[in-house]
Every structure is written in C-alpha cells, then in structure tokens.
C-alpha cells in the first residue's frame, strides 16, 4: 500500500462505495407535510399514524431509500444510517414543518424512530396536553414558542 500523500489509495474506494455515493441514483421522495391544525384536533391514534408517515418520509428523503423500508421500531437512529450531518438535516426539516424544537443530540441518540414519533405526537396534540414541553430542559422534542404562528 502506498503511504505517501501523493498516491494515497483513495481511488480504489470506488469499488466499495460507489453505490453509496452516487446520490443521483438514490431514491428521492418529497414527504407530504401534515396539517398542524388537524394534528392538534384528531385523536391520538390518528395523530401518531400521520406523524409516523411524515417522519418515515423525512427519514427516507435524507437516507435516500423508499419510506416503506424504514424500520421505525427496532433500531437506533445511527443504525438506520443517521449521522450528524443528515441528522442535522432531519432536525431542521422537521422543525420547519412541525414548528417544534427538536434536540439534535437527543435525536441522534434516540433508541428508535418510534421514540421520536411518540415525542412528536405528544407535542403536537391539543394545546392543553400534559405531554407538551416548553423548550426548557433536555427534551427530545419541545414546543417552539417563537415558531408557533
């Protein structure tokens, strides 16, 4: 193996990671944003179903895989392929659509996507929900006071 900087063996990573890297060939899908008023008004099961579909869609977009292949219950976020940069992308996309604060560090350490979905469902329920956090403390998801219309 060549150990000089001029000829380091980066090129032969091609045989290992080409399929990982060629973004243009990856699956890309735009998730449907849920209606926030409907989320607040619907029953908890429907709210969780809608948020599950949306989070799957965002995970699928950042991971470049079909939404129905996302395992939301059995794997931590890192094992799904979420690292710091695409975790940041996921955080920012969800915050913009759902008008909540998502803690990036807690997101990356979540035991499963279902944990995130449950936290979002608790946060996006009726205004007097006991599950709501106001942004103080170390919560995975919190109420975004400034971002709420």
């Amino acid at each position, binding site marked *: *193996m060549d*150990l*000089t*900087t001029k000829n*380091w*063996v*980066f090129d032969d*990573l091609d*045989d*290992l*990671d080409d399929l*990982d*890297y060629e*973004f243009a060939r990856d699956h890309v899908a735009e998730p449907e944003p849920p209606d926030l008023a409907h989320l607040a008004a619907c029953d908890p099961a429907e709210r969780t179903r809608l948020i599950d579909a949306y989070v799957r869609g965002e995970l699928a977009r*950042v991971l470049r895989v079909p939404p129905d*292949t996302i*395992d939301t219950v059995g*794997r*931590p976020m890192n*094992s*799904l*392929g979420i*690292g*710091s*940069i*695409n975790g*940041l*992308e996921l955080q*920012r*996309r969800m915050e913009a659509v759902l008008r909540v604060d998502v803690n*990036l*560090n807690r997101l*990356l350490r979540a035991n499963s996507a279902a944990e995130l979905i449950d936290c979002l469902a608790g946060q996006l329920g009726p205004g007097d929900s006991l599950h709501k956090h106001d942004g103080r403390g*170390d919560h995975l998801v919190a109420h975004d006071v400034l971002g709420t219309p």
Partner: protein
Amino acid sequence: MIGQLAHRPDAAGAPRLPLPGHLDVWLVRRPRLDTAAGTLALDELSEPERRRTASFVRPADGVTYASAHIALRRLLGAYLGMPAADVPFVREPCPGCAGPHGRPAVRHPDPPLHFSLAHSHGMAVVAVSRAVLGVDVERLPRAETVEVCAAALHPGEQIELARLGAEERRLAFGRIWTRKEAYLKALGTGLSRDPARDYLGADPGRRPAGWALLDLASGPRHNAAVAVRGAPPERVAVRWLPPTATHLDGSVDLAAGGVTTRVSDWGA
C-alpha cells in the same frame, strides 16, 4: 506491513504510549463486503459492539463500524501493552451535567493516553495523543443538505459559505462540520452544544483559543479533522492501517511508515 514492533492483538506487552507533543492518526477503510464476515476479528469486540454491528440496516455500515472498532481496540491494545479484547472503555463525566456520557476514555481520571474514533461511509479515523483530542470524518454532503443545514452554523461560517459556489460550498461545509464535531467531541459535549456557538471556519485566528484544529487528507469523498487541546502537536503522523490489521490473524504495527509532518504543513 507487519514489522518488528507489530503487536499481536491477543498479547500483553510493554506499553508504547505516544510521546508528549505527538499526534498519531490512523485511517481505516472497511474491507469488501463479500469477505468481511470471514476475515474480520469480530471475536475481539464486546457483546454490545457485536450487537451494534448486527443492527445496521446497510451491511456496509455494519462492516465499517466493526472494522473501526476492531482497529481501535488493536491500536489501543498496542499503545497500552494489553490484549485488544481487554482494552477498558469508560466514559468521562459530561462537562454539562456530570452524567456518565462524556468523552470515551481508557481510564478516568488520569488516562495514560487520549483517543478519539469516527467513522463514516467506508472510512474510519482513530486519533491518539497524550493531549485531549477529538476527531471526525464525514462523507461529503449533498448540495441540498448543505442548503438546509448551513443556517445552523455560526454566523461567521454562514457568511463564508454564502460567498462560495455550490460545489465549493459542499467542500467548505464538510470542512467546517468535521472541525466543529471534532472540537465538540474533544470538549466532551458533542452536539449537545449548539453548533452555532463556536466558529470553526476558514480563519484560524477566529477559532476557539487553546485548541489546534487540523484538516486531514481524506480523499475526494470525505472530510476529516482533528481537534487537539493546547499547543499544536510538534509531530503529526498520519497512516493508513493496512487492511490485514483488522483480520483474524492480523496485527498492528505502531512503527509503520506513514506521513509525518509538522503541524505548520497542514492546511487547517
């Protein structure tokens, strides 16, 4: 590649700690998927590490994780003079809440060396020093990802990115982010500290005082960086770990040839 000082992963020996002022960086690439299961020394991983290896959706990520952690154990075993499987891992207290989820270490307090590990899409980096340090490696982000994420950076970093074209911006974002995450890992906070808080952009004079930030050569598809507390290292050695070093019958050679440089030669 296995030299006279090669360390058998199952052997104890004399510790060969890095000298004060020296920084050792080891680049690790994952093996081919079709041969990894039969060649990697998976038996040296702890049970939680083996479970984690099996948990990845993409087999390539699992093999990257496993080869990175085998390499880490074997390298630290060679530095510490102990079998790879026996290398003790502890967590230092979190600087924010004192909980047991701060920097990984081999002992607390007063570890004999400091280390940091990062891996991303086929590549891993292990950095070892007598000084506190952090390392990061990331695959080059998509332009769309940079567009979404840039606003989360320090205002000074955002200004730098805004001046660049799309392709240059991807590269610059990757450099900023890897410096930032290396620094936050070295601090022990990780990303619990707001990424907008610290400037890790192109101007070394504006970066956090008391830290040396080094960009690492890491090929056309990755960015990598190291943050070292205190004065810049007097000597930085960057080496590829040979693929056989993570094999069942492999070993690591701390005296292997590589690129040794003064910190002033680095483009960070």
